[in-house]
C-alpha cells in the first residue's frame, strides 16, 4: 500500500469521524447507533496506519487474499446493520400503532367532554 493511498484513506476516515461527531452534537443520530460507525472508522484507521497487521490477520484466519477479508468483513457488517435496522423499524412501528390508537381514543374522550359541556 502506497503512502499516498494511506493518507487519502486516513483523511476520508477522519472526515467521516468528524461528520459523525457533528451529527451527534446536532442530535441527528443517537449515540448508541453512532457508536458502531465510530468503531468502524477507528478499525479502518488502525489498519490504514499498520497495513502489515491486516496481512497478518488474514493469514491467521486463513484467507489467502487480504482484499477478500475486507469484502467479508464489509458484508458481515452490512448484514448485521440491516438486521438491526429491521428490528428497529418493527419496534418503532409497534410504538407508532399504539400512539395512533391513543390519539383516536383521546379524540373521542375530548368529543364526549365537549358534548357534556354543551348540554
Amino acid at each position, binding site marked *: 500500500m502506497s503512502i499516498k493511498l494511506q493518507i487519502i484513506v486516513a483523511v476520508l476516515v477522519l472526515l467521516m469521524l468528524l461528520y459523525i461527531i457533528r451529527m451527534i452534537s446536532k442530535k441527528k443520530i443517537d449515540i448508541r447507533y453512532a457508536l458502531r460507525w465510530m468503531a468502524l472508522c477507528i478499525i479502518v484507521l488502525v489498519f490504514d496506519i499498520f497495513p502489515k497487521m491486516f496481512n497478518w490477520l488474514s493469514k491467521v484466519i486463513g484467507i489467502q487474499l487480504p482484499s477478500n477479508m475486507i469484502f467479508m468483513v464489509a458484508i458481515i457488517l452490512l448484514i448485521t446493520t440491516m438486521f438491526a435496522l429491521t428490528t428497529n423499524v418493527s419496534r418503532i412501528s409497534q410504538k*407508532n*400503532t399504539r400512539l*395512533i*390508537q391513543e*390519539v*383516536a*381514543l383521546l*379524540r*373521542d374522550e375530548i368529543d364526549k367532554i365537549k358534548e357534556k359541556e354543551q348540554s
Partner: protein
Amino acid sequence: MKKLVVIPAYNESASIVSTVEDIKQNAPDFDYIVVNDCSTDNTVEVCKENGIRCLQLPINLGIGGAVQTGYIYGVRNGYDVVVQFDGDGQHSARFLETMVEAMEENDADMVVGSRFITNEGFQSSAIRRLGIRFLSGVIKLLTGKTITDPTSGMRLINRNIMEIYAKDYPKDYPEPDSLVQIIAAKKKVIEIPVIMNERTEGVSSISPINAIYYMIKVTLAIIFARFKKI
C-alpha cells in the same frame, strides 16, 4: 351486561349507515362504535351527519390496528363482551344475540360466526374456500381443534380475551392467528352457524396478487401463535 359492537371501516361510506341501522334494529342491546381507519372517502362526514359514534384513527393502521383500537375502547369503557362486525354489509346483526346466548350457554371465551357449518348464504369463491380449508387443517394439526371458518371476521369475545387482544393483536390479516393464540392459551372457542351476505360495497382486503403472500404469512403466523406465551 354491557355489550359492544366494533365496526372497523375503511372507505365504507356507502354501507356504514345501513350496517349501523341493522345493529340498531336487530341487536338493540348492543352499543356500537365505528373505527374509521383514516378513510379517504367521506366516511367521517357520513358518520357525523347520521349521528354515528366514530373513533377516528389519524393515520391508516390496517384492519388489525383498527379492530384493536375497538378492543382497547371496550376495555376502558367497561364492556363485558365485544363483537367485531364488518362495515361492508357482509354480516347480519340478527346473529349477535344468538352469539351472546351461545357464549353464556357454553361458558365460552370466544364465539366465532361460521359460514361453513350449515353452508348457507354467501360461501365465498371456490379458491377462497380451498384456502380457508387449508388454514383450518393447519389449525387442526397444531391445536387439535376444528375451526370451520378461521377467517371469519364475526367474532364475539369476553372481557378476558379483550384484555389479551388490547395488549397484543396482529396487524394485517389478523383473524386466523389471533384465534390460534387464544386456543393455545387454553381458552374456550366455539363456533355457531351464521349466514353472511356477499359484500355490498368495497373490495376485499385480499387481492389475487396478495393471495400467495396472505397464505404464507397467515400459515407462519398461526405456527408462531401456537407457541406464543401470553
